[in-house]
């Protein structure tokens, strides 16, 4: 018998194997087509723009396009002594074009960021050009050097050369309070200007402690909810779910009322004699306010995953542990607690991820010492309009979150997220 006769055929006469594969492929395409609209929508409106944030954050093309000839002629310059006549000449011709387009101000601004002092000397050069004082039949180098003594300083030409690449890591370095110095080495900014590192550290610190507080408060009540009879636990569950469904701003507002100096919490402290009436502590517009409000707001995100895991643990396990001679504490620690670890992981990572990107609550109750990196991003987006810097910081934050997300996926799996 040949192998052909062994092959099972469908009614159309096509071998079954091929027919099945065809059907399989058809099903795959069908399934993919269902997902395609949303996937496409998200890629266009969301994933690409995040990519655009990256190009924006490293983009330094503006000046590359402003001084094309200068950078071209600078390629052969070794950067140790003053550049040649050719470089000066091409710089002047680039500069004249910029003056015509009225863009010399932008150039001065950008160069001044690279090295202080460019503003003045660019203005001086501009005046000379405007009055047609520069005679192109004679040495342009000599004439430019006469405009201001800084044009005779090689450091300024080195600074111009440093701006040549169309991409820059300056924004990322700035977010870490660092910059590239004259010798292209990464240096730290002076101590009194290191503001961003404090913010990063504070963001991680707040997210970490909020996670710890949420865990310490969430674990007992998740346990209580999971072990109480249904009719009581359903009622108590409302205490968790109502805040969960209530607007973030409403909850922040209520904390602002509770924590203010004449607020209910302070009233209570005075009543039980913890603090003197004329010496009420400031609980808002500082870290205390941020911690308290964020913990309450994020607590449901800890309780819900913990609860859904604890619900699946049979109470007979604890009884078995006790009957085998363990004290309640030992039975809890050796039997119950290890079984809840998946829930702990899910809850902690969820709370940490949410806390690290928090913006609204810290902005309202945090005051100056409670602001986090997100507030800084919003500030640069809206007030200073330094969008590339905001993008750089945003992407650094995103990088951190993605690492945690990846961990979460490894430990719990994204499709295991439970809501409500």
């Amino acid at each position, binding site marked *: 018998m040949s192998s052909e006769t062994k092959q099972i055929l469908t009614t159309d006469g096509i071998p079954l194997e091929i027919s099945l594969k065809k059907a399989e492929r058809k099903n795959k395409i069908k399934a993919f087509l269902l997902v395609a609209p949303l*996937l496409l929508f998200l890629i266009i409106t969301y994933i690409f723009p995040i990519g655009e944030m990256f190009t924006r954050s490293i983009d330094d093309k503006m000046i590359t396009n402003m001084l094309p000839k200068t950078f071209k002629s600078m390629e052969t310059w070794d950067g140790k002594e003053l550049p040649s006549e050719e470089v000066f000449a091409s710089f002047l011709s680039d500069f004249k074009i910029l003056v015509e387009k009225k863009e010399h101000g932008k150039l001065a601004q950008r160069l001044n960021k690279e090295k202080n002092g460019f503003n003045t000397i660019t203005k001086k050069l501009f005046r000379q050009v405007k009055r047609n004082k520069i005679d192109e039949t004679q040495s342009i180098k000599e004439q430019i050097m006469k405009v201001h003594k800084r044009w005779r300083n090689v450091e300024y030409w080195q600074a111009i050369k440093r701006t040549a690449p169309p991409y820059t890591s300056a924004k990322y370095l700035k977010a870490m309070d660092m910059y590239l110095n004259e010798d292209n080495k990464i240096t730290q900014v002076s101590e009194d200007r290191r503001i961003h590192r404090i913010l990063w550290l504070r963001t991680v610190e707040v997210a970490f402690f909020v996670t710890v507080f949420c865990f310490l408060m969430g674990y007992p009540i998740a346990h209580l909810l999971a072990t109480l009879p249904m009719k009581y636990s359903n009622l108590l569950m409302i205490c968790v779910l109502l805040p969960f469904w209530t607007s973030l701003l409403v909850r922040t507002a209520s904390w602002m009322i509770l924590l203010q100096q004449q607020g209910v919490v302070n009233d209570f402290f005075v009543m039980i004699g913890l603090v003197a009436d004329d010496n009420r502590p400031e609980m808002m517009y500082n870290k205390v306010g941020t911690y308290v409000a964020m913990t309450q707001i994020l607590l449901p995100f800890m309780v819900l995953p913990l609860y859904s895991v604890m619900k699946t643990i049979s109470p007979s396990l604890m009884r078995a542990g006790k009957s085998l001679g363990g004290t309640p504490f030992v039975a809890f620690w050796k039997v119950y607690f290890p079984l809840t670890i998946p829930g702990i992981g899910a809850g902690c990572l969820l709370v940490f991820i949410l806390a690290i990107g928090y913006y609204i609550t810290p902005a309202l109750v945090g005051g100056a010492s409670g602001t986090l990196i997100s507030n800084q991003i919003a500030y640069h987006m809206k007030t200073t309009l330094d969008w590339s810097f905001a993008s750089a910081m945003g992407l650094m934050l995103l990088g951190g979150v993605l690492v945690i997300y990846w961990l979460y996926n490894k430990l719990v799996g994204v499709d295991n997220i439970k809501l409500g």
Partner: protein
Amino acid sequence: MALPKYTETRYRIWHYFYIAICTFVFIFLIAPLFVIFPLSFNAEEFLVFSEGMKNLDPDAFSLRWYKDMVYGTKNPWGLAAKNSFIIAIFATLGSVILGTVAALGLSSRHMPFKGIIMATLISPMIVPLIISGVAIFFFMAKAGLAATHTGIVLAHIILGTPFVVITVTATLSGFDHSVTRAAASLGSNPVNTFMKVTLPLILPGVISGGLFAFVTSFDEVVVVLFLAGLENTTIPIQMWTGLREQLSPTILAVATCLIVLSTLILISAELLRRRSERLRGINR
């Protein structure tokens, strides 16, 4: 949770300590919501309990902040409420349609690259809102949709779909596919099968995903702050500006209304969850 009679004293103490902690946490969770209620009926302009309120004097309570909320000329709460509802309704519709269809594809066992696609679809929920805000703002500014209702609706669809995808995939995980095969064998076309068989069965999941999407849109402030112009102001934006500038009791009146709304949403979500569990045959 009654303790057996033979419990040793130290465990008895521990047990009461545990109950005390739980009570404290429950109060911590729920009490802040209840502070707002009485203060929103304050007759005075201050956000503290007046002597009259403490003595339950009827004159200390009034509806003036609710009147101010509805009729007040300074606060455009009316416009904000209208915008919020319009945006939330359209964003919910968009999220539910896109999310449900995608969830149908995702729960098919033939779906290629399931893991990475799922991760992409859920990413707007995981990426910090501030980053989503920046990215979406860049897109909308380029597309000329900044400061339009359309732009905000699209942004909220982005943020709302992950919830729909998650709830509907969860509902579909317990779904008995033989019923759709039965429908197909009885001569129903796929669209008809979906409308008449699948959809009614997964409806609780779809609606609860829709509720999540609605609340996400209705509460959302970070992205909207980047996108909205004066015309597109929403309730969260108004609250945000109000809270930043000065806490007026009118905000508390609005907050009370929002709490009532969220209570209603909570009740419907709970009812839906139970119905869904019953339909999927999960008995507890």
